[in-house]
C-alpha cells in the first residue's frame, strides 16, 4: 500500500523454497503462503522445531519493532499472549538482505471468519477471554493498540482467542501509531491516541459492535451520538448497552472491570433470539415468512371450523327442537 522510499521488497515465494538465516544459520522450507497484507507476508514453513510461521515485513523498521514487542510479550508470565518468537534473521537472496522472523504457527480460524459462521453469543465469550489477556498486558505497562478482528484468531482445538498480529502494541503513555478507523477512539471523537488501557477497551467494545451487525460503518456529522444511538437501537447490543457505553466513554480504567460487568450482563441476559449460525440470513427470513403464512392458514381453518360448528348447532336447534 505505501509507496515511499522506505519500502522493502514485495516477497513472493514458491512452496519448497529454502530460506537460510545469515546470522543464526537456521533453515526454513516454505510450505505455503498464510496471508499477505499491507504490512507484509506470512508463510507457513518447516523448521527444525516443527511448523512455524515466517513473516517478511515490507518495512524493516516495522519488522524490528514487531520483534521487540514479541520479545516483551514473552516475558509476561502465564499463557502466551502473542505468538512465541523463534528466530530473527536476514536472508540473503539475489544479493539482497531480506529480514524475517519465525514465530509459532497458531492453527485456527481468523476471528473475522469465525464471527461469520458463529453467533453473537460466541463473540461475547471470546471477548471475555480477550479482556482477561488485555488485563495481563495492561498490568505489564503495554496496550494492544490496533485491536481488531483481523489481528485475532480463534485457535483450534479449544476455541481460545489468540493474538495474531501484535505490531500495534504500544507502551502506556506513548502514542498509538497503528490503528484502524472503525476501532479507533480518535476517529469517533471519544479521545486522543495516547496509549492507555481505555484505548484498548474502546476497541474491544467496537469489536462487539462489529460482531453484532457484522459490518463496519462510517462516522457521520455527530459521530459520538451516532455511535451511542446505534448501540441503543441494535437488538443484539441494547442488552449490553451499559457495559458498551462505559467502555466507549472511557469509564473503565481496567480490563478486569469491563470483563466482570460483561460477564454479569451475559449471565443475566438469556438470548431470546433464535440462533442464526450456519444459516444464511436471507433464506431463514423467507422461511420465517413462510411459517407465518402457514400459521395464518391454520387460523383461517380454525375460524371456518368454529363457524361451521356454530351453524350446525343452530341447525340442530331450529330443526330438531
Amino acid at each position, binding site marked *: 500500500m*505505501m*509507496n*515511499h*522510499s*522506505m519500502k522493502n521488497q514485495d516477497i513472493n515465494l514458491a512452496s519448497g523454497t529454502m530460506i537460510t538465516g545469515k*546470522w543464526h544459520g537456521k533453515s526454513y522450507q516454505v510450505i505455503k503462503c498464510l496471508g499477505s497484507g499491507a504490512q507484509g507476508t506470512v508463510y507457513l514453513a518447516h523448521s527444525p522445531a516443527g511448523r512455524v510461521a515466517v513473516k517478511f515485513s515490507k518495512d*524493516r*523498521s516495522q519488522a*524490528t*519493532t514487531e*520483534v*521487540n514487542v514479541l*520479545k516483551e510479550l514473552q516475558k509476561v508470565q502465564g499463557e502466551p499472549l502473542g505468538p512465541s518468537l523463534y528466530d*530473527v*534473521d*536476514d536472508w540473503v537472496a539475489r544479493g539482497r*538482505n531480506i*529480514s524475517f*522472523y519465525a514465530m509459532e504457527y497458531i492453527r485456527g480460524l481468523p476471528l473475522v471468519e469465525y464471527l461469520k459462521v458463529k453467533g453473537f453469543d460466541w463473540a461475547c465469550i471470546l471477548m471475555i477471554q480477550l479482556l482477561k489477556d488485555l488485563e495481563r498486558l495492561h498490568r505489564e505497562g503495554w496496550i494492544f493498540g490496533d485491536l481488531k478482528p483481523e489481528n485475532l484468531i480463534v485457535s483450534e482445538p479449544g476455541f481460545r482467542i489468540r493474538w495474531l498480529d501484535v505490531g500495534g502494541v504500544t507502551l502506556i*503513555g*506513548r*502514542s*498509538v*501509531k497503528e490503528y484502524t*478507523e472503525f476501532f479507533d477512539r*480518535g*476517529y469517533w471523537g471519544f479521545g*486522543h*491516541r*495516547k*496509549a492507555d488501557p481505555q484505548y484498548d477497551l474502546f476497541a474491544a467494545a467496537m469489536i462487539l459492535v462489529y460482531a453484532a451487525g457484522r459490518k463496519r460503518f462510517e462516522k457521520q456529522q455527530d459521530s459520538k451520538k451516532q455511535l451511542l444511538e446505534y448501540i441503543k437501537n441494535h437488538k443484539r447490543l441494547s442488552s449490553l448497552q451499559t457495559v458498551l457505553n462505559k467502555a466507549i466513554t472511557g469509564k473503565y480504567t481496567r480490563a478486569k472491570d469491563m470483563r466482570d460487568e460483561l460477564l454479569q450482563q451475559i449471565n443475566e441476559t438469556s438470548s431470546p433470539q433464535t440462533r442464526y449460525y450456519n444459516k444464511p440470513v436471507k433464506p431463514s427470513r423467507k422461511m420465517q415468512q413462510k411459517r407465518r403464512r402457514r400459521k395464518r392458514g391454520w387460523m383461517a381453518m380454525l375460524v371456518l371450523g368454529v363457524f361451521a360448528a356454530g351453524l350446525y348447532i343452530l341447525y340442530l336447534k331450529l330443526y330438531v327442537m
Partner: protein
Amino acid sequence: MKKGTLKQILLITDGCSNQGEDPAAMAALAKEQGIAVNVIGVIHDHQSDDSGIREIEDIALAGGGISQIVHTKQLSQTVQMVTRQAMTQTIKGVINQELQNILGDHETMEDLPPEKRGKVMEVVDELGETVDLEVCILVDTSASMKSKLPTVQEALLDLSISLNSRMGNNQFCLYSFPGKRHATNKLMAWTPQIDSISSVFTKLASGGITPTGPAIREAIQTFSKTSRRSFLSDDESFYEESGY
C-alpha cells in the same frame, strides 16, 4: 542530551504545478536547511496523469521526505502515516550517520545483527515519541481541489489528534496556495494544536495557477521565523508579516 526539532513541510496537492520555480528544486533547498518535504497526492479515481505523479515523487525525493498517492477517502490515515514515517526516516538518517562515524565505512542499521538492530530501533522509536516537531502544512486550493477540501480539513484535525498524543511538542502552521498577492496565503500561524479550522478553506482561488515551487519557498521562510520567534516571543505578529 539536547534533542533538536524535526522540521517538515507537508504538501497536499492534486496535480501539476505551472508557475514559478521547479518545486523539486525548492524541496532540495528545504532539505539543505534541515526541512524534510513530504507530499501527499490526492487524485481522482479516474486520474492517471503520470507527469503529475512523477512531480509528486520528485518533490519528496529531492526534499528527503516521503510521497504517497491516495484517493480522497484514505486521506486521514495517510496524512498521519506519512508524517510519522518521515519522522522515523529522518531520525534513522541521523542515527545511520552517527553509526557510520563510529563504525566507519558504509555501516548502517540494516548491517547490524538483528539483536543490535532491535536496540537501535528502540532508540529510534523513543526519539520519534519525544522529539519536538514543526510541520508547515501547504494545501493546494486551486479549483480542482475544491471537492476534496472538506476531507483535507478532517485529515488535518486527525493529524493533530495523532501528533498531540505524542510526548514531544508540536507546532503546526497552515498555508494555502495560490494566494492573492503572494504564492501562499496564511490560514493559521504557528500553533501547538489544530483545533478549529472548520471555515479555513472558504476562500478558494479560481484560475489555473498552481505555483507549487514558490509556495515551498515561502513555506521555508516560515521556519526561520519560528526560530526567531523563540527568542522574541512577544513579537509574533511582526515577524510573521515581515517575511514577505
